[in-house]
C-alpha cells in the first residue's frame, strides 16, 4: 500500500493511479454493458444514453452523499467551497449506486425506455466497475482491515502491508472479488430472470456483502457512532428492495403467508445486525463468533429480500415461456 500516487499535476487537477483505475473500471464497465446490450437486442444508442446518464449520476451521487455525511467535518476542515470541487476527491459507495440508479431512471422516464431492462443490462457492468475501483485502492491507504500478526497469513492478496509496513487484511481485494462474483452472476441472471431480476440481485448482493465487508474495514471509513455509513446505506437499499417486491406481489395477489413472514422478519434481523456491530465494538465475545452470526443473519436477510415465494417462480417460468414463444 502507498500514500496517494500522483502521476501528474494538471493545474488544480491531480492524475493519480487511483483515478486511472476508476476510469479504466468505467471503460471496462461500458464495454461490457454495450456487449450485453447487444446480446439483449437493445439499441446501441439507448445503451450509450443510459451510460451517459448513469456515470455522471453515479459520480454526483457519490459526491453528494459523501458531503452530506461529512458536512460538519467539511465546513470545519475544508470549507464549504470544497463541495463542488469534485477533483479534490471525496466519494462514497452507495451514493454512487443511488446516483447511478437516479440517472438511469431519469433517462428511462424521459426516453420512454423500460427502466427494469436498462438496469438489468447495466448491473453486471456496475459490479465490474466496483471490482476495478476496489482494486485501485491498492494505490491508496484505504481498504485495509484488521492487523495480521501471524506470519502464515502475511501474503498478498490475503493481506497487504500498509504505508508503515504492518500487515493488514486487504479488505479491498475481498470486496473486489465479491464484486466480480456479483458481476458474473448478474450477467447470467440477465438472460434467465424476469425484467428487473438481475438489477435486484445486484443491489441485494452488493448490500449484503458490503454490510459484512465494511465491518472489517479499519481505515478512514465514514461512520455514525459505531455503525458504518455504508452499512446503513446497504440496509436502506435492502429495505427499499423488500418493500417494492412485497408491495408488487401484494398488489398482484394479496397478502401471502410468506409476504407476512418476510416483512415481519426483516426489522428484527436489522436489530440483530446492530447488536452484533455493538458487540464487535464493546463486548468481549470472540469476533469470529460474532462475524459468523452476522454472516448467518445476512443469509437469512438475503432470503427474505430475494425469495419472493412460489408465485415468483411461476412468474419467472411464465416469463421464460413467453420469451421462448
Amino acid at each position, binding site marked *: 500500500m502507498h500514500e496517494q500516487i500522483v502521476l501528474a499535476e*494538471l493545474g488544480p487537477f*491531480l492524475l*493519480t493511479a487511483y483515478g486511472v483505475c*476508476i476510469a479504466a473500471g468505467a471503460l471496462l464497465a461500458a464495454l461490457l454493458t454495450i456487449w450485453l446490450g447487444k446480446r439483449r437486442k437493445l439499441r446501441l444508442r439507448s445503451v450509450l444514453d443510459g451510460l*451517459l446518464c448513469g456515470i455522471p449520476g453515479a459520480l454526483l451521487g457519490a459526491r453528494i452523499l459523501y458531503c452530506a455525511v461529512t458536512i*460538519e467535518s467539511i465546513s470545519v*476542515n*475544508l470549507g464549504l467551497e470544497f463541495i463542488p470541487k469534485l477533483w479534490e476527491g471525496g466519494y462514497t459507495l452507495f451514493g454512487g449506486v443511488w446516483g447511478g440508479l437516479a440517472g438511469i431512471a431519469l433517462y428511462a422516464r424521459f426516453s420512454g425506455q423500460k427502466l427494469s431492462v436498462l438496469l438489468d443490462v447495466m448491473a453486471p457492468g456496475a459490479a465490474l466497475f466496483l471490482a476495478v475501483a476496489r482494486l485501485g485502492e491498492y494505490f*491508496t491507504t484505504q481498504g485495509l482491515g484488521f492487523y495480521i500478526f501471524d506470519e502464515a497469513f502475511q501474503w498478498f492478496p490475503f493481506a497487504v502491508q500498509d504505508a508503515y509496513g504492518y500487515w493488514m487484511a486487504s479488505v479491498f481485494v475481498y470486496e473486489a472479488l465479491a464484486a466480480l462474483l456479483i458481476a458474473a452472476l448478474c450477467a447470467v441472471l440477465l438472460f434467465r430472470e424476469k425484467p428487473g431480476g438481475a438489477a435486484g440481485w445486484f443491489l441485494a448482493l452488493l448490500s449484503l456483502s458490503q454490510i459484512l465487508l465494511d465491518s472489517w474495514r479499519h481505515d*478512514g471509513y465514514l461512520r455514525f457512532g459505531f455503525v458504518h455509513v455504508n452499512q446503513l446505506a446497504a440496509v436502506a437499499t435492502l429495505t427499499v428492495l423488500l418493500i417494492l417486491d412485497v408491495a408488487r406481489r401484494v398488489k398482484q395477489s394479496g397478502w401471502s403467508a410468506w409476504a407476512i413472514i418476510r416483512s415481519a422478519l426483516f426489522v428484527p434481523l436489522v436489530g440483530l445486525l446492530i447488536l452484533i456491530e455493538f458487540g464487535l465494538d464493546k463486548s468481549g465475545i470472540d469476533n469470529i463468533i460474532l462475524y459468523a452470526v452476522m454472516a448467518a443473519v445476512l443469509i437469512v436477510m438475503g432470503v427474505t429480500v430475494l425469495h419472493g415465494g412460489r408465485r415468483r417462480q411461476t412468474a419467472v417460468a411464465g416469463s421464460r415461456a413467453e420469451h421462448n414463444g
Partner: protein
Amino acid sequence: MRSVIVRIIILAVVLLMLTVLAPSSTPVAYGECRLPAAAVDGMV
C-alpha cells in the same frame, strides 16, 4: 450512425474526465494521512 459516434465521443470524454475527477475516495487535502475515524465522522 452519426448520433452513435457523437455519443461514443462524449462517453470517451466523460471517461477521460473521470481520471482527474476521482483522484481519491477521500479528500486529497487530507493527504491520505490516516486521519482518526472521528475526523471524518458524520457526527463530529
